[in-house]
């Protein structure tokens, strides 16, 4: 389905701390629910999230079933240089998604 929703400021001053917001479409099926006939619904969640800034890791998260559907994660980074911030999500059943955003540092 849809691409992730990323919010990174397009421009920032060198050394400025910028907020980054990420939202991705995923049901985060916890593995603790049952169908109406009593069968357990298999776990299907996003388990990992990594952000890199011009190739260098700046943030990493491990997600558990207690993260709400359509995971929303916000964090901060220091605007060091112009370039690309890349985001990668991985999860159960081979799930993988990528997105990137450009930032211009002045």
């Amino acid at each position, binding site marked *: *389905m*849809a*691409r992730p*929703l990323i*919010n990174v400021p397009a421009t920032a001053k060198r050394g400025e701390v910028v907020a980054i*917001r990420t*939202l*991705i*479409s995923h*049901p*985060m099926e*916890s593995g*603790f*629910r049952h169908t109406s006939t009593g069968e357990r619904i298999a776990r299907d969640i996003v388990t990992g999230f990594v952000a890199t800034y011009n190739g260098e890791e700046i943030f990493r998260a491990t997600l558990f079933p207690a993260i*709400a*559907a*359509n995971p*929303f994660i916000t964090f901060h980074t220091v605007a060091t240089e112009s370039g690309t911030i890349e985001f990668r999500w991985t999860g159960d059943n081979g799930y993988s998604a990528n997105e990137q955003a450009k930032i211009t540092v002045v």
Partner: protein
Amino acid sequence: MREGVISRRAARLLLAACIALGALPPSSQAEIPAAERRSSYELMSAETKAMQDEDSANPGMLWVLDGEALWNRRAGEADRSCADCHDAAPQSMRGVAARYPAFDEKRGTAVDLQGRINLCRTEQQKAPPLAFERQELLALTTYVGRQSRGLPIDASDPRLDPAVETGREIFTRRQGQLNLACAQCHDDNWGQKLAGIVMPQAHPTGYPLYRLEWQTLGSLQRRLRNCLIGMRAEPYGYGSAEYVAIEAFLMRRAHGMPIETPAVRP
């Protein structure tokens, strides 16, 4: 993940409250005066309001993004996209959702936005209709709805009167095992508490919307189905004329209120 013990006790509370409501004399009060109409947005916590207000935090925007992609994707035997006929949605669809359900000349009846999208699919694109409550139809409906965000609902078309009256009749009729009418909660007792939560006025301003309980986005028809099941009444099938009529009535009742699509609700 809900705990049964607490819920069972609480459920008895709701049942008792509903039975008490059901025992009241039939709805005597008139509809909500225009000056007292309030979107359920106003009942929400600051955190949930912020979730709706900030696009980068609103999960409904994922469906808007998806809908934008679908708008431009060719489909069907005609190999045409929505954009091929309607161009850019921000211009061509501005205000459209605020006028739906709309009167369809050809069929002589009211058609809701989801119905209109599927008529476009089958008649213009020569493609099979999209399934209710599935990603594609929700995404396209949300994308079109988004183009009316902030614009006032216009449900003034008199040709909609028959649908509005059918909707009003369903809304005020007692039904289900609890012998309740929609109006008993949403016209007569809004603002009162039912088992700890404030009863809303039930305006359709934000649909399709992201409901925290659903953990996903859903249509007004899904919400109406919820209500009917809660009243222990038989829900109508998705796409039925009854749901379109209820929506036509609710839109007339909310005439002038701003569209919030995609809204967020608890």
